[in-house]
């Protein structure tokens, strides 16, 4: 059954990319435990508008955990305390009456804050542009069942392909590393027969782009996996380490 919460929110406010930013504290009352976290922020924003203060900007779209647009640090944890849950799928029943909740944007040099809780994740797009695809033109495809894909490989590929690109891995990693994101795409395509021709170039170029975007290094703390709403395994990182080593030993150089 629903009951209601009164909460104190400490939220990072920053008017634009270059502004200094600061925490501001707000009270919200009568929050139903059935609400999602973002609905709670909606309530706050309606309240702020009525009080004449600009609402808190935050990214969100599908609100069903698949688009990857939402994401914030909630009490120091990416997407809050639940496992395999995006911020939009986090519900207020996870919080206690009277609790103070600290809300911060993803923080990484590669993800500059645009406003309040909104960050620029275009670095992820650029990593994909470096090789996160199979080069096939529309019309070139052979009949779909021409290449059988073993059931286990297809399942493993899908496990990796489930990445929603939200950036929680970077946000949660103490080094702001993008290894899980990059490794998920590398693994997805390396596991499928269709991905073989570009397998080596892909991993070398994607890693080079990842490095140039100034993400941190992976130190294998596996916090990314714990924060990942899509449940991507750090096994993908191990796979990428292997793929990259093999590719470099084979003499493949990055070419961006």
């Amino acid at each position: 059954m629903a009951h209601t919460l009164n909460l104190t929110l400490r939220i990072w406010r920053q008017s634009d990319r270059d502004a200094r930013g600061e925490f501001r504290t707000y009270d919200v009352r009568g929050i139903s435990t059935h609400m999602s976290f973002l609905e709670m922020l909606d309530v706050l924003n309606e309240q702020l508008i009525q009080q004449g203060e600009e609402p808190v900007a935050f990214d969100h779209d599908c609100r069903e955990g698949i688009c990857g647009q939402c994401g914030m640090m909630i009490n120091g944890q990416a997407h809050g305390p639940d496992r395999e849950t995006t911020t939009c799928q986090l519900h207020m029943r996870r919080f206690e009456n009277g609790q103070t909740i600290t809300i911060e944007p993803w923080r990484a040099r590669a993800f500059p804050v645009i406003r309040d809780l909104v960050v620029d994740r275009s670095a992820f797009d650029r990593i994909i542009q470096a090789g996160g695809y199979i080069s096939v033109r529309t019309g070139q495809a052979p009949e779909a069942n021409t290449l059988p894909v073993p059931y286990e490989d297809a399942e493993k590929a899908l496990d990796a392909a489930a990445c929603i690109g939200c950036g929680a891995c970077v946000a949660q990693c103490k080094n702001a590393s993008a290894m899980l994101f990059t490794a998920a795409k590398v693994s997805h395509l390396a596991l499928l027969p269709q991905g073989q021709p570009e397998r080596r170039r892909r991993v070398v170029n994607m890693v080079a782009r990842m490095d140039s975007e100034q993400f941190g290094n992976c130190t294998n703390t596996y916090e990314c996996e714990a924060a990942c709403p899509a449940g991507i395994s750090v096994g993908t990182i191990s796979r990428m380490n292997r793929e990259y080593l093999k590719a470099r030993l084979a003499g493949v150089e990055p070419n961006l």
Partner: protein
Amino acid sequence: MNVSLLAASTSPAERWVYAGMLAANLVLVSVLVGRLGSSLAKKYVMSLTGLALCGFLVIHLIGNAMMLFGAETYNAYADSLHKDEAALKVGEFALLFLFVAHIWLGLVTAGNNRAARGRRYDEEHVKRQDRTAGEFLAPDYWMLVSGLVIGAFLILHLWDFTIEGRPDIGYSDKTPFEKAKAILAVPWTKIAYVVGSVFLGWHLGHGVASSFQSLGIGNARRNRAIRWGGVAFAWLVALGFGIFPLISAYL
């Protein structure tokens, strides 16, 4: 390091040789790190040097274990190391290279990683629920600290045994066995050596399994053998080294 115990005392010339080795390694490593193009290449070197150092630790521990068989065995073992001085120096140079490369890369990546975050979080908590050591003792969060402590211990250890620079130990009239006993008999040294061993165990508790992950060998998080094997190795080594300061008086 128990590699140069034979000499009654380390000569000033030998100390200059070590200083030269260090300088040469610093230059070598700085060139090497500059040539490591990608973050993954750094990881590989970090892992390989770490694993090689683990191999050295095992040999070192076997050497230490000679103490259990009495002074004669131990002294004979120490002498045997000095049979071929030139080979020993080459080995020492290689060993120093592993340390310098490992520490240098650790410092460089730690700096990069700090910079990659930018502004720090006001509040930060782990999300892994299986951290047996708890949030504040997780070894992976303290690799730089534990590494620096081990580094400091290493300097002390080299000073004690290799450089032979301790004024409170009369090096000239001691066999290697007596030298070890004398050093470990000093109470604060005893504590320092135990602490050093504990930090070593803590460091390796993450480092060993992590190396396998970095080299793409298995999935260190899922593969129990790698995960627990790494932890078991770490604490066996720590126990092995840590026990000597405690029992040295009885040997």
